[in-house]
């Protein structure tokens, strides 16, 4: 279905246009924004200070102020309103009406995405003429084409955050619907704080702005992907467009059915693969990072970032007991011997195995790219990768086990387990430090937690034999994999033996 057909007479979009753009509400707002934007533009014009306009910073300050004003509309108001609009429709029951209407989920999603942000977009548009005026008065005309890319990058960046906000609005539990906007805002703020880290900075428009700013020479990192230099705008597109695509996929699936998984299992793996490729592609930038103290900084960052992403991706496709039971019974009714492995309701084992394999592939590639530059022993590196991969496996198996074994309370018990496996060793080592225990005891205790163990096994220490910490960490993770695999098999067998009809 084409974008035009989705937009044409889109009922949700029309609804928002009517409710958000009532003349008596929007005209005062527009007037305020136009006056503010006009004042900013005036301050940057040669009219305000013609004598030394070219020498002073007025134009530059006005431009930055204009970007900030536009950023408020695109990155604060639009995501906030979209998240709240979707959450309110769910909470009030209107979303059910939309879902039972013959409208396509994509049309509904587009209606909420554009409709919810309509007011913010109109206010943003009202500032554009002033921005363009400032751009075309650039004291350095050669930079004008690059500056013109900034509003475009801001719009795409805004679309990314608004899509994320819509997903939050559609997914946040109903009792927390009032906070959907706050969650969306928190995501935007966190993403902007992360602009210093190259794989994340491309989610915002900041690199494009920095590229044309006066501080270009002071940038902490260059712009390249897989070592190939590229303009920041292109890099932003390269990072944002696939992520917008995946967000849209998740939004559409959630719009179709309230309790749907955001991704199917193959889509989740593809999502991880894309994020892995983007992260590896940015590795060369991390190598060049000026505050990097070791050439292992890049691969280690990749290792931790991808570990978090792998755990997250594994978690979002793990079915609850009811979903698995429903899937099994449905399969039986259809005459199938078992639930297809890649169906949404199937257990997560195939996905976490694939995630583990993909993770190994990406992190191995990351470390190979710095081989020979710095001394990390092959043994330590293998132990570190083993710990990370085993962590992905036991996290997935334990998550599935607790959800199937303890139904509603499964998530709480899973949290308790993670506390014991991840946090407790670090707490114990902290206690050991306080009680004056020897440093190798502290390190060994700490290595039992994978988060500390991965880092510790990377760097051999003076007090501990070379591979011992890595061995401890990997062994602990392996034991947990074996334990949870046994428990997982037992509980899954009980569910899959269900009769077709009770």
């Amino acid at each position, binding site marked *: 279905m084409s974008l035009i057909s989705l937009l044409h007479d889109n009922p*949700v979009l*029309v609804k928002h246009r*009517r*409710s958000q753009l009532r003349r008596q509400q929007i005209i005062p707002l527009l007037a305020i924004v136009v006056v503010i934007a006009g004042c900013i533009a005036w301050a940057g014009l040669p009219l305000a200070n013609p004598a030394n306009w070219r020498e002073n910073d007025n134009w530059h300050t006005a431009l930055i102020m204009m970007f900030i004003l536009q950023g408020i509309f695109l990155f604060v108001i639009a995501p906030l309103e979209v998240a709240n609009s979707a959450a309110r429709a769910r909470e009030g029951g209107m979303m059910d009406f939309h879902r039972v*209407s013959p409208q*396509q989920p994509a049309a509904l999603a587009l209606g909420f995405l554009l409709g919810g942000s309509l007011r913010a977009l109109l206010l943003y548009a009202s500032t554009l003429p002033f921005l363009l005026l400032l751009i075309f008065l650039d004291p350095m005309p050669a930079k004008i084409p690059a500056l013109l890319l900034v509003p475009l990058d801001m719009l795409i960046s805004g679309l990314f955050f608004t899509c994320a906000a819509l997903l939050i609005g559609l997914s946040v539990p109903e009792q927390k619907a009032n906070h959907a906007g706050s969650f969306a805002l928190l995501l935007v703020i966190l993403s902007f704080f992360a602009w210093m880290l190259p794989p994340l900075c491309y989610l915002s428009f900041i690199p494009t702005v920095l590229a044309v700013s006066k501080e270009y020479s002071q940038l902490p990192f260059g712009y390249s992907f897989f070592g190939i230099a590229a303009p920041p705008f292109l890099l932003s597109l390269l990072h944002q467009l696939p992520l917008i695509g995946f967000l849209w996929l998740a939004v559409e699936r959630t719009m179709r059915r309230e309790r749907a998984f955001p991704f199917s299992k193959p889509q989740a793996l593809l999502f991880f693969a894309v994020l892995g490729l983007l992260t590896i592609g940015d590795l060369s930038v991390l190598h060049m990072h000026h505050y990097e103290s070791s050439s292992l900084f890049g691969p280690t960052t990749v290792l931790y970032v991808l570990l978090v992403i792998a755990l997250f991706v594994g978690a979002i496709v793990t079915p609850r007991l009811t979903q698995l039971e*429903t899937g099994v019974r*449905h399969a039986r009714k259809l005459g199938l011997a078992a639930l297809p492995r890649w169906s949404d309701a199937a257990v997560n084992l195939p996905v976490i195995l694939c995630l583990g394999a993909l993770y190994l592939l990406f992190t191995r590639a990351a470390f190979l790219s710095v081989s020979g530059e710095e001394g990390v022993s092959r043994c330590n590196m293998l132990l570190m990768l083993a710990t990370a991969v085993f962590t992905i496996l036991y996290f997935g198996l334990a998550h599935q086990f607790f959800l199937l074994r303890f139904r509603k309370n499964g998530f709480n018990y899973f949290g308790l387990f993670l506390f014991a496996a991840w946090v407790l060793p670090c707490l114990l080592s902290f206690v050991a430090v306080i009680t004056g225990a020897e440093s190798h005891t502290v390190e060994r205790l700490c290595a039992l937690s994978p988060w500390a163990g991965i880092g510790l096994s990377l760097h051999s220490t003076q007090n501990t034999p070379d591979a011992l910490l890595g061995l401890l960490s990997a062994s602990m993770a392996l034991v947990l994999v074996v334990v949870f695999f046994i428990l997982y098999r037992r509980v899954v067998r009980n569910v899959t033996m269900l009769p077709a*009809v009770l």
Partner: protein
Amino acid sequence: MISVRDLRVDYDDVCAVSDLTFDIGPGEIYGLIGPNGAGKTTTLRTLTGLLEPTYGDILLNGLDLATDREEAIRQVGFMPDFSPMYEDLMVWEFLDLFAASYFVPIDQRKQLIDDYLQLVDLTEKRDAMTAGLSRGMCQRLILAKTLLPSPQIVLLDEPASGMDPNGRNLLKSILRELGAAGKTVLISSHILSELSEFCTSVGVMERGKLVVSGSVAEVSERVLGSSALQIEVFAGAERCAELLAQTAGISDVRQDGNRFTCAGAQGAEEDAALLAALVTAGIQIIGFGRKKEDLEDVFMKIGAKEVS
């Protein structure tokens, strides 16, 4: 036409609907009754595709909801038991939203909206904000929204709750018209006396199962047995008691002064003969007839207890 086979719906720990099988034909107005938590709302929400059944087949006008969802739900108009509303819209805008959602051509919408506002007696509120409507008015507006796309299947969950007597009369007449127009109507309600006035058939749910289903008379008969014969005399009570005791088919005669209540599944013909015999015997009859059982009695007998 609604056809449901072996439907089961589970929530986390709860089986909300189990082994549900029923058919509702065109022109039929089917009332679904049962105590709170019996599974009525779950059944209706599953029929709209809002809930995914654990298993079971749902056919809406011959279209399988599992495989042909979009076409199937196009046949359905759904009114939930509460009135969700976009409070920042005017009444006509609210209806226009749903006219557009169901692809009513733009040039036909204004007339259609005016017609349905008139149908639910909300013409005067056309340009009012929905936030200012009373609960009963909201229910009527939702009813208009439900009927506006002219669905073949109408699912109504407690439609009369919050409506004043005028609103209820309006609802009754609309439902009768829908039945006459050959639409399939499934309605769940607690206002049982009114259901029996316009439902052509009813089903009673308890603990997720359909306990009994059929016409109102059939269901009453199966649940309550035959209704009691009640006789009131002005004079001749003793003679009346003697005669009743001698009459074949009459049993369990209870006397309370000049009033008699008897059990016995007699037909109209036998009742007429008995009345004639009593009059011939010189007994002065001032009341004679069978107690009319209604759905309320059925409901109380089957499951007046709260399940939830």
